């Protein structure tokens, strides 16, 4: 699949950068001329992934989060959110609805479920002590 456009961004694992990442992805994807709803879905999914890297990956400590986005020829956007944080022991378990390792932070355990629901595909790669990569795609359907 050919690439129409690509960007890579790196930012610090600070909570204010969650809003920043959302705007960056929205501005980039706007090149595919989505609806407000499609954009809201993508922003919500990216928020969840970035929040996970901040809270679970780096556990509030300093680190860098990378986000890569590609606009493919068929109007699919492919988004990767990558951290070099603590990693996930059991990805299959982590992806289950309501599963959370931080109930004390009032986490809902619905982050991965939201990403899965709002995007067309979700892949999660993780290694303990190395970090986590989340890859999501969504096709923007022209009306």
């Amino acid at each position, binding site marked *: 699949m050919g690439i129409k456009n690509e960007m890579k961004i790196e930012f610090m694992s600070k909570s204010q950068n969650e*809003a920043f990442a*959302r*705007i960056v992805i*929205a*501005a980039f994807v*706007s*090149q595919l*001329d*989505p*609806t*407000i*709803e499609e*954009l*809201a*879905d993508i*922003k*919500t999914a990216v928020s969840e992934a970035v929040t996970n890297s901040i809270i679970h990956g780096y556990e509030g400590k300093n680190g860098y989060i990378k986000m890569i986005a590609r606009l493919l020829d068929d109007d699919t956007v492919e988004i990767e959110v990558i951290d070099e944080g603590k990693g996930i022991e059991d990805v299959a378990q982590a992806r289950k609805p309501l599963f959370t390792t931080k109930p004390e932070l009032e986490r809902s355990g*619905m982050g991965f*479920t*939201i990403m899965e*629901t*709002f995007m067309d595909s979700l892949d999660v790669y993780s290694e303990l002590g190395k970090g986590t990569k989340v890859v999501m795609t969504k096709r923007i359907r*022209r*009306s």
Partner: protein
Amino acid sequence: IGEIRRYLRDNNSIRVSRSLRDIAYKALQARDRLIAKNGREPNISEIAKELELPREEVVFALDAIQEPVSLFEPIYH
């Protein structure tokens, strides 16, 4: 002239956060108008055209307000 100058000065010191919210509300109004007119969700470029702003400006502004969150409902309710 003093009046105009004061207006300009006041206007220039408006925080971005406020102007973004103004644009966002206009964008949502434009969206409603377009839905009424065309019977479907408008694309971001159609809204941007109504407001005579670049698409990117519109999506930036939209982030400044609570967006319609109907999509959350099936999950949280």
